[in-house]
């Protein structure tokens, strides 16, 4: 069991207690004293074990405070990265080359050691999460500044190194933010490699969104048990963004077809992908997949409305149609939600 599974168990126990009290009030269920004592004892022992081993939140107020701690941890990590960068910029010119190289090499290693120390001392991993972000940032800074010190040609190999580093941090400490950062770097590396194969500069990979599609499909297809939400979520967002950009401007496609035809192809693909995400999300009972699909469907639809009607339709009529469509989508999503609950 990992921390995420432990928290889900603790949440189910809390919800179970609340529903049990409600059922007893309504007279649907009555426990005798022995049953109640045994049940409460078991639930208390389970919660205590989960809290002791995984530092999970056992009450609603604890959960809310934990969210605040996660936000503070993320902001703290980003601020630490910014402080490091600005500190180096301020004093860089007065340091000799050997000292500069030493600082750059030691910074990520020391921060990695600090992350390891924090992870071993604290089960909640809030400090480790903050330090892991700073470690990742320090490694990015390390390669960037070494490259600019020695005037090296920018290389996509740096993306590969950062991506692998992010994954090592994520799997070592069970942290999702370094995982997301690492997967983004690896997706960019794959896209940059494809751009090079197609004859373009590697840095121009964002100019052809199709470069991102293979990476998105890999993220969606990898069979996983751990961190599956991060992989699937990133894969879907990347896929949807690439399709959205190509549905708006087909000139940036590799397809040997006219701009209008390419846009039509990707508009159709976009609606199909959104529908598939909603259907798969419902069938597999994965709420965020269905929600992402629904959000993308709505964005695509509203963009189509804008392109079809905005230039000639009276403004009041356009927004009336948008609002009626929104009501229709609400009804549809309500049906989908009911099917997920069934």
């Amino acid at each position, binding site marked *: 069991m990992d921390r995420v599974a432990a928290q889900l168990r603790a949440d189910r126990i809390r919800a179970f207690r609340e529903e049990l009290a409600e059922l007893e009030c309504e007279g649907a269920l009555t426990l005798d004293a022995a049953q109640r004592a045994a049940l409460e004892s078991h639930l208390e022992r389970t919660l205590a074990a989960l809290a002791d081993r995984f530092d999970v939140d056992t009450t609603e107020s604890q959960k809310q405070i934990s969210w605040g701690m996660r936000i503070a941890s993320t902001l703290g990590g980003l601020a630490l990265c910014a402080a490091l960068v*600005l500190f*180096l*910029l*301020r*004093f*860089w*010119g*007065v340091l000799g080359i050997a000292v500069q*190289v030493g600082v*750059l*090499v030691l910074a*990520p*290693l020391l921060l*990695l050691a600090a992350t*390891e120390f924090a992870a071993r001392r604290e089960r909640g991993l809030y400090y480790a999460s903050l330090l892991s972000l700073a470690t990742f940032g320090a*490694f990015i800074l*390390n*390669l960037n500044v*070494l*490259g*600019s*010190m*020695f*005037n*090296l*040609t*920018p290389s996509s190999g*740096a993306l590969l*190194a950062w991506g*692998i*580093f992010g994954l*090592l*941090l994520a*799997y*070592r400490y069970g942290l999702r933010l370094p995982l997301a950062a690492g997967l983004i770097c690896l997706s960019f590396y794959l896209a940059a490699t494809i*751009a090079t194969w197609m*004859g*373009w*500069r590697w840095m*121009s990979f964002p*100019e*052809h969104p199709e470069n991102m599609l293979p990476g998105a499909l890999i993220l969606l297809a990898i069979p996983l048990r751990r961190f599956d939400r991060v992989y699937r979520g990133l894969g879907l967002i990347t896929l949807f963004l690439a399709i959205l950009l190509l549905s708006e*401007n087909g*000139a*940036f496609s590799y397809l040997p077809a*006219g*701009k209008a035809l390419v846009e039509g192809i990707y508009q159709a693909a976009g609606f199909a992908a959104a529908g598939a995400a909603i259907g798969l999300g419902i069938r597999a009972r994965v709420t965020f997949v269905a929600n992402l699909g629904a959000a993308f469907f709505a964005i695509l639809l509203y963009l189509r409305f804008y392109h079809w009607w905005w230039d000639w339709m009276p403004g009041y009529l356009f927004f009336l149609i948008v609002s009626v469509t929104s009501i229709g989508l609400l009804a549809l999503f309500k049906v989908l939600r009911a099917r997920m609950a069934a």
Partner: protein
Amino acid sequence: MKNAGLVAAAALVLATDAFVLVEAAYNRSGAPVASMQLTERELRLLRPQRESTALYLEPQWEERWPSHKFEDGPGWFDQAKLEELGYDCRRPVADAVAEASYGAMPAKDAFAVLEYRPDSETGAEDRATRSRLFPVDAGRDFAALRAKYADARRFLVVPCVVKLFYTAKWDANTRRFAPGAYLRGSVVELQVGSIAAPPGLERLQNSNEYFSTVEGRARGPRYVAVLAYGQNHEPWISSLRHIQ
């Protein structure tokens, strides 16, 4: 192994840094592949941030044609040169979707030949602060360009980024685009566009600010530097001296 992930992360940092340092050392080993003495006009001083002590020199070069002479055509960087660099220019420029299609083509890596022209050749009075480097050719083979432009004191062959531009001629009288659009290329940037400045320039203000002042334009460049390119075609400043 219990701490395999931790060891792997640390090893990755050390291995990539070692690779970078070895590459840097190899680039500067042996004699430079190219070098040229330039002034502040061609190597502008840049301080990235107000509080930054890290300084950079940015190579500058002039376009062969000023903007108002677009109607003269693409010059040396024409469609044939673009096709030589790997651009697919088969779509007719008069095609209805030609502008969108060519506009979507990204930049490419290449080598540019920068010619150093002394002020006596350029002649314009307002060029006292502008670069004397002019791009005169581009290609994908460094050795072929070096052989063609063998005078190393006059021509610098450097890794660059080139881009295709679809240029339509604007008729101010009819307020419409006139027939006769064409494709042209441009050296848009160098692959290493900022070069770490050697010590000695810390007290100087940015070159763009300096040359925007009357004193700056009257006094002219403040330093002379030798720009060298190494085995990996990556640059460094091998020497620098102040102009009194």
